[in-house]
């Protein structure tokens, strides 16, 4: 071995490309953005016509809460969202399962679902008003249809992705058909169904607002529409903040369900 060769450390080149959870960064971005807007509106280089002052929006929210108007707007909105998406999601899961399990259902219904999926459901609202009335019925129907199609697609995709080896195992042990579906296919499809639910419920919130903008006295959508037509930016933004909070809340709820039901995963 030749002597006196210089020893050097091998340079590290394996870093990066791996997302790491960083706590608080998301909140910091929000806070900085709000502070900049607050500063800009106070200093005057953001005009009052462009953006409202965040502190004013906050004050509007507090006022909304104190006057009890928040509850009287949220209650009908949440009821519509819960009832409508419950109908849409349960029908969607049932139909998605049927498509995943039966070849005839797949052949017959997949084209239909593909045809329904890209229709902007809001365009059907006038039709739903005729079919189900101007009251709650049309709003339920709109939200139900809007959450239904993405749930169907997510569910049958999830069923298709269930490990065929596990199903074959079930068959080889002579399990009943209902056992194979209930104990192997459904739990195996659950992760896909739940991630589809995130998308469906976000669409549900969008449609909720749209429905409330077309003929509702109370509800977040009606509140935003009123504020918009009066060009009351503080109230408009207060409504938007409530919607964002609703979205975050729904996503957090699904996260909680996932943690509970999918403990076996990680």
């Amino acid at each position, binding site marked *: 071995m030749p002597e006196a060769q210089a020893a050097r450390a091998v340079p590290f080149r394996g870093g990066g490309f791996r997302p790491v959870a960083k706590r608080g960064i998301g909140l910091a971005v929000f806070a900085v953005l709000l502070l900049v807007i607050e500063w800009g509106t106070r200093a005057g280089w953001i005009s009052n016509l462009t953006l409202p002052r965040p502190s004013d929006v906050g004050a509007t929210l507090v006022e909304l809460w104190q006057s009890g108007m928040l509850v009287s707007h949220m209650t009908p909105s949440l009821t519509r969202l819960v009832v409508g998406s419950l109908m849409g999601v349960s029908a969607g899961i049932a139909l998605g399962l049927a498509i995943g399990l039966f070849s005839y259902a797949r052949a017959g219904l997949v084209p239909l679902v593909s045809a329904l999926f890209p229709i902007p459901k809001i365009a059907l609202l006038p039709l739903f008003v005729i079919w189900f009335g101007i009251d709650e019925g049309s709003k339920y129907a709109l939200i139900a249809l809007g959450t239904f199609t993405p749930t169907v697609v997510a569910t049958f995709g999830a069923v298709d992705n269930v*490990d065929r*080896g*596990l199903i*074959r*195992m079930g*068959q*080889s*042990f*002579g*399990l*009943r058909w209902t*056992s194979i579906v209930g*104990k*192997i296919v459904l*739990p*195996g499809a659950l992760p896909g169904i739940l991630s589809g639910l995130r998308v469906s419920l976000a669409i549900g919130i969008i449609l909720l607002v749209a429905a409330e903008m077309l003929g509702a006295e109370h509800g977040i959508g009606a509140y935003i529409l009123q504020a918009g037509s009066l060009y009351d930016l503080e109230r408009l933004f207060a409504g938007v903040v409530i919607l964002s909070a609703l979205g975050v809340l729904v996503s957090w709820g699904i996260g909680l369900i996932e943690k509970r039901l*999918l403990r*076996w*995963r990680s």
Partner: protein
Amino acid sequence: MEMTLDHITHRYGDMTVLDDVSLRIPAGEILCVIGPSGCGKSTLLRLLGGLETPDEGRVLQLGEPPSDCLNPLTYVFQDFALLPWRSVAGNVSLVLEDHGLGRAARRGIVADVLARTGLGDFHDALPRQLSGGMKQRVAIARALAVNPAVLLLDEPLSALDAQTRELLMEDLVSLWTRVPFTGVYVTHNLAEAVRLGHRIAVLSRRPGRLRDLVEIDLPLAERRPGHPALEAVQAQLWSLIREEAQAADKELADA
């Protein structure tokens, strides 16, 4: 219970995978099936357990399975096929739940087979927490739980490392020594075949035909790695399939 393959021919589309295979699987013995990759070994096993039906010929079972047998033809899969959302006990219990057994009876069977496979301490563990060897032990426990008349093992040790494989082979031997079971053991590993097979069926390359049937008289419990008699049989088997394995290796998948 004895099984017979009677002039089995099976095709996938235009490709013949098994050509006129006849085999007898006597009760209480382990038959190993070896052959180069793609020779239809696994197909043979799927036919035996009724997961596929042969294009020609018949798969016969002779005699009735014992009355306490819940699932006469029971598989152990290469990829374990455990439900990741069920605990070790839950995975075993799964295959008992459709048979109208009481809760207590099920618990008794689960505890018994977990004890027999050395899994007593892992009752509540989830599959992701277990090593490959432990997962396959769970799958073996699950297979034993239904009291099978014939155990169909599809390369059960292929996904495991060499040390684990050795340990599980010893486990299988001791299980058989305590209660001799009828088994069909498909593998491409000659060392496994000579350790576990009372008889070894050698299949040819596609289309799979029965080339030879080698019998080993040495009792399972006396077989050790490196035993001269076993080494001799292994060399003999290798000479039988060497050229075919070479040719199979060079084959294009879709040619």
